[in-house]
C-alpha cells in the first residue's frame, strides 16, 4: 500500500476513526489496533514477508528479555550476538547474498578460476533494512544498559512495525518511540492539523516534484550516449530533486500520519540542499540513519577520541557501511566513499561543526559567502548522486565522461522533455517555499500563519498542483532499501 495511493487514503481514516472512537478506552486496545493495522499495511505488499517481520520482532523481543534476565556477562553476550547474527544474517541473505556471490565469481574469473555460485531468486522484502535497524538499535541499547527490555510484546511490536515508519523509516530509537507508545495518548487538535499539513506537503514533494523529475532524469540516465554533456548535467540535477522530493516527501507523509495518532517520529530531513558544507549536509539528510550510524558504529569504533587518524578511519567506515546499507551494488559503495572524501577536509581540520544552525537564520537572503558555499556543496552532492542513480560503476563513469566533453558547453537538449518549462517553474516555486520555511520542522509548517485566507489559498494551490501536475507514478526509491 503506497502512501500516494487511494487505498492508503481509505485505510488511514478507517484506522484513525477506530483509534480515537473505538479503541480509545484503553491504551492496550489502541496499541493492539496499531499493530493489526501495521501488519495489514505490510501484508498488502506481500503477505509472505509478514512472517519474516513477525520473526524479526519475536527474535529481538525474546533476546531483549533474555539479556535483561542474564545472570552474567557471557550469557548476556550470547543473546546479544544471537540477535545481531540472525538479524544481520537475514539482511545478508535477502539483500547481499547475490552481490557477494556474483562479485566473488567475477573476481575468481579474473584470475582464471571459473566458478558457478548459486544465486538466489528472491524478492527483497520491503523495508527489511529499516526494521532490522530498529531491532538492532533496541538490542544494542539493552546490551549497553541504556534501556530496560520491553516486557509488553504488543508495545514492542508496535515500536518496530508502526505502519507510518515500517517500510522506509525514519529509523526510530527505542528511547524515543517506546515511551510514547507506552504513554496514554490524548487527541491534540493542533498536532493533528499539523500532521495533515505535513502530509499535504509530502504528497506535493512526491507526486509533483519527484515524479516529474524522475521522468526527466530517466530520459538522460537511460540513454546518456544520445545526449550532450549539458543535457546530462540537467539529468543529474533532476535526479537530485527527484531523490529529495521522493524520500523527504515520504518522510513528511510518515511523520504527518504518525501525528494523527498522537505520536512524534524522529525528523528525517532538515533542508539538506541549503547546507554550506558536506558535514552539515549529512546532519540534514536522512538524519535518522546518519545518527544511527554515529551512535551504533562511529562511537563504538572509538569516535573521535583517538585523534585525527581515528576520526578519518571511522568516518570512512561509516560512509562505506552507509553506502552499502543502501543497496548491494558497487555504485552505492562508491557514492558512500565519495561522500567520505568530501567530508574529509572538515574532519582533518576540525571544521565539521562550523555550520550547526540553519543558514541565514532570521534573514531573508543569505550572504554571498553563504550562497557560494551552498552552491558548492550542492554541486558536490549532485555529482555524487550520479553514482547513486547509475546502474553500474561503468555506467556512472560513462555518464561523467560524457558530461566533461566538449558538449558540456552546448545548450541542453530540452526538446525531449515535455512540459520542461512547467517543471522548471514548479522547481523554482518548490525551492522558494523550502527556503522560506527552512527554520521550521517542514517548509509549510508555519507558512502564511497570520492570514487564514492566504494560508488556505496556498493549500489550494498545492492541491490543484497535485491534481493537474502530478507526474507518472513512480515507486518510492527508498522502498528498495
Amino acid at each position, binding site marked *: 500500500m503506497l502512501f500516494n*495511493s*487511494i487505498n492508503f487514503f481509505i485505510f488511514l481514516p478507517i484506522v484513525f476513526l477506530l483509534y*480515537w*472512537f473505538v479503541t*480509545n478506552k484503553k491504551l492496550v486496545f489502541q496499541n493492539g489496533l496499531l499493530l493489526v493495522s501495521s501488519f495489514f499495511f505490510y501484508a498488502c505488499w506481500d503477505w509472505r514477508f509478514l512472517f519474516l517481520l513477525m520473526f524479526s520482532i519475536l527474535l529481538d523481543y525474546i533476546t531483549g528479555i533474555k539479556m535483561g534476565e542474564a545472570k552474567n556477562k557471557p550469557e548476556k553476550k550470547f543473546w546479544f550476538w544471537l540477535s545481531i547474527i540472525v538479524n544481520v544474517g537475514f539482511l545478508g541473505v535477502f539483500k547481499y547474498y547475490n552481490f557477494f556471490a556474483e562479485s566473488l565469481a567475477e573476481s575468481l574469473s579474473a584470475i582464471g578460476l571459473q566458478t558457478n555460485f548459486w544465486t538466489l531468486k528472491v524478492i527483497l522484502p520491503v523495508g527489511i533494512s529499516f526494521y532490522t535497524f530498529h531491532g538492532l538499535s533496541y538490542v544494542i541499547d539493552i546490551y549497553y544498559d541504556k534501556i530496560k527490555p520491553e516486557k509488553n510484546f504488543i508495545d514492542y511490536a508496535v515500536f518496530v512495525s508502526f505502519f507510518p515508519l515500517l517500510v522506509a523509516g525514519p529509523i526510530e530509537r527505542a528511547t524515543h518511540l517506546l515511551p510514547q507508545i507506552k504513554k496514554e495518548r*490524548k*487527541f*491534540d*487538535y493542533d498536532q*493533528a*492539523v499539523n500532521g*495533515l499539513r505535513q502530509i499535504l506537503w509530502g504528497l506535493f514533494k512526491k507526486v509533483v516534484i519527484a515524479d516529474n523529475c524522475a521522468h526527466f532524469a530517466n530520459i538522460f540516465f537511460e540513454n546518456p550516449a544520445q545526449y550532450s554533456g549539458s543535457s546530462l548535467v540537467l539529468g543529474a540535477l533532476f535526479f537530485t530533486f527527484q531523490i529529495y522530493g521522493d524520500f523527504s516527501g515520504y518522510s513528511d507523509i510518515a511523520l504527518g500520519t504518525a501525528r494523527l495518532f498522537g505520536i512524534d517520529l524522529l525528523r528525517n530531513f532538515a533542508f539538506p540542499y541549503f547546507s554550506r558544507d558536506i558535514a552539515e549536509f549529512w546532519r540534514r539528510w536522512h538524519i535518522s540513519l546518519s545518527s544511527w550510524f554515529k551512535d551504533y558504529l562511529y562511537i563504538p569504533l572509538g569516535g573521535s577520541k583517538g585523534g585525527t587518524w581515528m576520526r578519518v578511519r571511522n568516518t570512512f567506515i561509516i560512509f562505506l557501511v552507509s553506502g552499502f546499507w543502501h543497496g548491494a551494488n558497487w555504485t552505492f559503495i562508491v557514492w558512500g566513499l565519495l561522500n567520505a572524501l568530501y567530508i574529509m577536509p572538515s574532519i582533518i581540520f576540525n571544521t565539521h561543526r562550523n555550520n550547526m544552525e540553519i543558514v541565514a537564520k532570521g534573514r531573508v537572503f543569505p550572504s554571498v559567502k553563504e550562497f557560494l558555499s551552498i552552491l558548492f556543496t550542492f554541486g558536490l552532492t549532485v555529482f555524487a548522486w550520479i553514482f547513486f542513480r547509475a546502474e553500474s560503476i561503468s555506467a556512472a563513469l560513462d555518464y561523467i565522461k560524457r558530461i566533461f566533453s566538449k558538449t558540456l558547453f552546448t545548450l541542453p537538449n530540452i526538446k525531449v522533455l515535455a*512540459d520542461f518549462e*512547467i517543471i522548471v517553474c514548479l522547481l523554482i516555486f518548490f525551492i522558494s517555499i523550502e527556503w522560506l520555511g527552512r527554520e521550521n520542522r517542514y517548509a509549510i509548517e508555519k507558512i502564511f500563519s497570520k492570514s487564514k485566507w492566504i494560508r488556505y489559498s496556498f493549500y*489550494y494551490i498545492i*492541491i*490543484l498542483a497535485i*491534481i*493537474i*501536475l*502530478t507526474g507518472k*507514478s513512480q515507486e518510492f526509491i527508498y522502498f528498495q532499501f
Partner: protein
Amino acid sequence: MKNRIIFFLGSLMKFIAFTAFVYVVFIIGFGLFMPKVLSKNLSYKRGSNGHLFSRVNEINEYKNVDVLFLGSSHAYRGFDPRIFQKHGLKTFNLGSSAQTPIQTELLLNRYLDKLKPKLVVYEVYPGTFALDGVESALDIISNDENDSETIKMALELNNIKVYNTMIYGFFRDIFHLNKNYKEKIVKKYDTYVKGGFVERNSLYFKGFKSLKNKSDWEFKVEQFDAFKRNLDKLKAMNISYVLVQAPITSQLYKSHTNNEYFDNKMKTYGKYYNFNGKLNLVDSLHFYDEHHLNQKGVELFDDFLLKELPVLNKK
C-alpha cells in the same frame, strides 16, 4: 477530548467537501479555457487517432452481428468488414487504440447486449497485457458517452489523468457540448470504413531507426484478471470466441523474448491462433509501421484467417 476530535473531523469534512467542489470547477475551467500545454493531466481529445467516435456512433445501426472483433489498433486496422462481408458474414469491429482487457470489459458491458454476436474474435496482443490502460481509457472517455462503466473503469485504473478527464467528459456529456461534433471520415492517411475498420493504404514500413533491444513483456496481473472476466462474460452469454494474435513486423515480434510464454498462457483460455510467422508477410511490403498491416497486408491476413479458422468457414 471527543469534542475536539469531532470538531477536527467536522472541519476536515468541510475542507474536503469544498476541495471537491473546487476540484470539479477547476477541472472544467481548465478543460474549457486552458491551453493544452498547461493541461498536463487532462487529456480530452474528441476525434482522436483511431476513429473511435465514428465507431461507437455507428453501433446503433448494428445488432445480431455474426462476428464481433475486439482488441487494440491491431484489430480495427486488421479486420476489414468488407472482406468478411464477401463471405456472407455481418461483422462489427469494436477495437480501439491500445485497448487493454480493462477497456474491453467496459465496451462489452456497454455494447454486447446490443450487438449480440454469434462469435467474438478477440485480438490479443501481448503488449496490451503489459499496459496500464490509461491511454485507451482517455480515448474511450473522450469519444464515447460516459456512464457508470466509466466510473468503474476509472476506479480500477486509479490514475489522476483518468479521473480528471472523466470529470471533464461527464461535464461535456451532461451539457451536450459535443452534439455538433462530426468526425472526418478521412484523416491524413486514414479512412474510416463502415463497420469499425480504419484503412491505411499505400504506405510502407521503412524499418526501425535503430535495432531494438530484446526484452521481456512485463505483464500486469490486473489485465489478465479483466481478460478472464471478459471471457467469462462471453461464456455466460453462450457466445463462442477465438483468441487471435494478429501479425506484427517480424522485427518487433522477435524483439520480445517471452512470446512462447504468452502463447502457452493464451492456450489455457481457449482456442488461440498466433498468426505471427504463419503468413508470408514481408515487413517492408505488408506493414506501414512496426505494428500495423497496410491494406495489402490486411487483405492477405483476412483471407488467411477465413481459411484457417474453421469457425468462420462454417458460416
